């Protein structure tokens, strides 16, 4: 009953910058994966390196991050990732299956 309810999603990208195949990269072109976890309070996303030949994400190779505090920012317009100490969240995400 005390467990924090979370929802997870992910999205692949071929590169750090938008390019013609950013919306729908083929498996062989995926280089970055954005893993999100969201609760009532926040949505936290880490964009990390991804190897399409082994299907492995490298959680220590962080390309970018997003953190939105939903109570104050329901539209997810103000990314506060760089402002906050997020190490605990990185560990939380890293520990997930």
């Amino acid at each position: 009953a005390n467990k924090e309810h979370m929802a997870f999603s992910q999205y692949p990208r071929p590169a750090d910058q938008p390019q013609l195949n950013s919306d729908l990269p083929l498996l062989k072109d995926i280089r970055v994966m954005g893993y999100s976890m969201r609760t009532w309070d926040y949505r936290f996303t880490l964009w990390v390196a991804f190897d399409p030949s082994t299907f492995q994400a490298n959680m220590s190779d962080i390309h970018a991050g997003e953190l939105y505090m939903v109570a104050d920012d329901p539209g997810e317009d103000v990314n506060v990732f760089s402002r906050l100490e997020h190490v605990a969240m990185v560990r939380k995400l890293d520990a997930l299956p």
Partner: protein
Amino acid sequence: KGRRNVLFIIADDLRTSLGCYGDPVARSPNMDQLASRSQVFLNAYAQQAVCAPSRTSMLTSRRPDTTRLYDFYSYWRVHAGNYSTLPQYLKSQGYATMSVGKVFHQGIASNFSDDFPYSWSVPAYHPPSYRYENLEVCPGRDGALHRNLLCAVNVSEQPGAVLPDMESAAQAVTLLKSRVGRRQPFFLAVGFHKPHIPFRIPQEFLSLYPLEEMPLAPDPDVPELLPPVAYNPWMDLRKRDDVQKLNASFPYGPIPKDFQLLLRQHYYAAVSYVDAQVGRLLAALDELGLSDDTLVVLTSDHGWSLGEHGEWAKYSNFNVATRVPLMFYVPGVTSAASSFPFIDVFSQSGRRFQNGRPVENMVELVDVFPTVCSLLGLKAPRPCPRVSFKVELCTEGKNLVHSFRHRERG
């Protein structure tokens, strides 16, 4: 009384722009009526905001890292593991399982067969008129036909004088009629193609949304601190004839505001069009005397950005792209009433309903499989081990059945 049937309705790119999710613009009386008799999950999320990965994930109850499907071009049974699907499991339990329209993503992702015969008792039905969907069938101001994004049409002038979701609704009603009086329970999955682009919809639905009353997205600009990797450049829109004429710059646009309003108007009109098809289905269920014995699940594969953050697509992790409607009507449990009269949005557009049982906790589409099983009184799949590529039947979701018995806390 025997086992319950399931009517599983899935829309394509339907975000929570519905009256029952508090959207002040949307006119969706039939889905709102269903919500008033259902348990409505207000915070339900897809696992990846694109069709094939999301649908495969939901129907197998495995996340994309386990289906290993991130694009459209592999079949999970040969590429990742021979995972059982929800309809396959029900079929093994004696259900007649049927697919109408877009349930699995077509093509390689479902072995060019919609996963028949594993998942379905009979081959999947696809509406014949879908073959015209991406052809030059949209009348332009120049009198010629184009491959437009904005494609409100006079249906009687379209090839076959019909649109795909109308055909799917009609086929689903025919299948429902064929099940009356049979002892074998059924699982009928109906996948509507809208509100996915192009907005090829009956033109009369535009009248529900006068342009002068249509608001822009509250946050139409690309956020200043958004990492470039998080942004998607909505390439599928750019390929349409009418969007190409806008000369929107790559990758960030923007789209001119007057076209933004048209785009939003057409999306909402497409939602009302799908709502009418859902209304036809539910009214048939009711009239055939099946609504007392049939569980109804309504959801979508993912959401869609309607201009928020300067985006016009799914393809992201934003809430607007990943959040979906999710509701379960369980006769005698979520509501004592089981009537679903068709509501004509044109004559009763102001009709409002109160949600039966709203749930605010976060849930996911991978939760649907075990939850449906439990609601049917079947054994739900066990939670998957950490590595489950060789496990045919397990779930990476949560069984939400407890939420039907107990109100959420806190």
